[in-house]
């Protein structure tokens, strides 16, 4: 929600302007110059997401063969991170974004609608940072918000297509692919939609080491190995049979969504460049 911050900033400015206007009523339109706000002391971090198959980065929709010998084409991968915080050397935290949405699909230049990407950036005060932590999904206190009250560009707007209309909640992770599990054609659909407050997960604190001066730019990568999602020790998913879930409907759907979520979150890694 970069936008949210921008709005708050604009609102803040408007408030200041309004107060100035009110206190110096007669000066309206011909008052003396107002001191411009000091440029804030901030640095910028870019966080990009990579889906990998072993050591190679996965390209959207391009066929690849996983460690089980199944072939897949990735059609959709979108997910929310929320309450993104950076941990300072003294253990205190700095919230940098309330909600971000990653979409693995490359930008379609023919559309002039808001689109999300594999990359988000945010600003934060300069300083020394030793960790990063986030939630995967949307926390319960905002999961019941009304998407129509957000601007189109906001990841929580109806436009991000993450909203579950019938249940009035957000989906957390959407993964869709078509697969060849041994038949010789891509006739096996993978369709995983997760959601529900029960499947909100908080990541561990990933260690990083960033000393940011004002104006610095840093890059972090969030990576995930496709094989870790499905073939995790003790929680593997039998892709031949277990490949469709909307989380709700049946207990089996929930169990699959739950295992998928846990593997997904456990598989996430943070790399510092």
């Amino acid at each position, binding site marked *: *929600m970069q*936008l*949210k911050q921008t*709005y*708050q900033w*604009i*609102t803040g400015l*408007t*408030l200041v*302007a*309004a107060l100035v*206007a*009110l206190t110096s*009523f007669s000066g*309206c*339109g011909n008052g003396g110059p107002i001191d411009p706000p000091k440029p804030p002391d901030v640095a910028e971090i870019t966080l990009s997401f990579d889906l990998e198959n072993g050591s190679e980065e996965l390209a959207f929709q391009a066929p690849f063969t996983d460690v089980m010998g199944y072939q897949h084409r990735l059609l959709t991968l979108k997910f929310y991170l929320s309450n993104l915080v950076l941990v300072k050397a003294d253990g205190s935290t700095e919230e940098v974004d309330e909600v971000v949405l990653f979409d693995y699909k490359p930008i379609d230049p023919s559309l002039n*609608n808001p689109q999300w990407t594999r990359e988000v950036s945010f600003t934060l005060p300069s300083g020394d940072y030793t960790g990063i932590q986030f939630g995967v999904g949307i926390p319960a206190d905002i999961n*019941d*918000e*009304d*998407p*129509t*009250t*957000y*601007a*189109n560009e*906001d990841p929580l*707007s*109806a*436009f991000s*297509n993450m*909203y579950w*209309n*019938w*249940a*009035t909640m957000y989906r957390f992770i959407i993964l869709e692919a078509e697969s060849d599990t041994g038949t010789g054609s891509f006739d096996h659909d993978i369709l995983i939609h997760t959601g529900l407050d029960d499947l909100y997960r908080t990541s561990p604190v990933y260690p990083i080491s960033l000393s940011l001066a004002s104006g610095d730019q840093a890059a972090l990568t969030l990576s995930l190995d496709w094989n870790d999602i499905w073939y995790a020790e003790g929680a593997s998913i039998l892709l031949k049979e277990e490949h469709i879930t909307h989380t*709700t*409907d*049946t*207990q089996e759907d*929930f169990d699959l969504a739950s295992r998928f979520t846990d593997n997904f979150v456990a598989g996430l890694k943070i790399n510092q460049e």
Partner: protein
Amino acid sequence: MKKTFGAFVLTSVLLLVACSTETEQKEDNLVTLQENHVPFELAIPSHFPDMVIPKDNPLTVAKVELGKQLFFDPSLSVDGSVSCASCHLPSKAFSDVLAVSQGVKGAVTERNSPSLMNIGFHPIFMREGAVPTLELQVLSPLEGETEMAHNIVLACERLNQDSTYRARFQEVFGQSATPFTLTRAIAAYERTLIGGDAPFDAYLLGDSTALTPLQQQGYALFTSDRLACSSCHSGVLLSSFALEHNGLKPRDTDPGLMRLTLNEADRGKFKVPSLRNIALTAPYMHDGRFASLEAVIEHYNKGGDGVTNQDERIRSLSLQEDEKEALLAFFDALTEASGKGE
């Protein structure tokens, strides 16, 4: 962002007040906007409950009119073929004659379309009751694959290409069609679908001749401890709006409330429907499985399908023929003039 938006409007107003010379033009606009905002006075019958109107969606005459136009406009669906009214027919108390409704390109929904008469009094929406407001409910048919199959932002873009709509939205909201304004307008119109003019209402208001003797017998049965219908279909709206199991064997594809809670004990539970205009809204139940009210009465008479989770109030009733007639006659007394599109 919602909250900050409110603050933004407030500060803008303060600014307008403060800097009158510079912003005369803007102020004028503000005034015209307010003049157009004639409040819509809801005609709520004296024996009906109050209606809760969300703070962000006050009813105005122009907004209700715009909402009505949108409700009947098929251009809200992806291929321009289906409007809200396609499945919510005004002559059928805004329900559908099909067991399960049909959306764009003949796609079949999984459920029967409920009546929208008096919908503004409901505290929850949809048959598993997961939707808390009429505003949010609009998203469901608009984006549902088997209903209008559109995307709300694209639907708004299409509306904004139409100069008449653009002007109407501007007039009502001071902005173009957006997911926010579109859902507010339609919900505002839906809140005006108020009846309260059935013979049953006249009877409740003291006219003891408004119901025939047979209808009065039916009403007495309906509220009797023996039948206990009114323990679920309660109050003037004839619904508790709770999620209950009325003894229907659920279909595998629709576990009702359990879809939301994943709790086996909720399988087969559905929102208790209002029975107002029930004679107009065949077929019945969430999947339209009963074509007639006779069939519904038979279901309750035999004590339901005898399935797990069935409520204990659903038990064999051994109704006499005249008692069935009386119930049917009572149902006829629940028809509102406005439910027939009059």
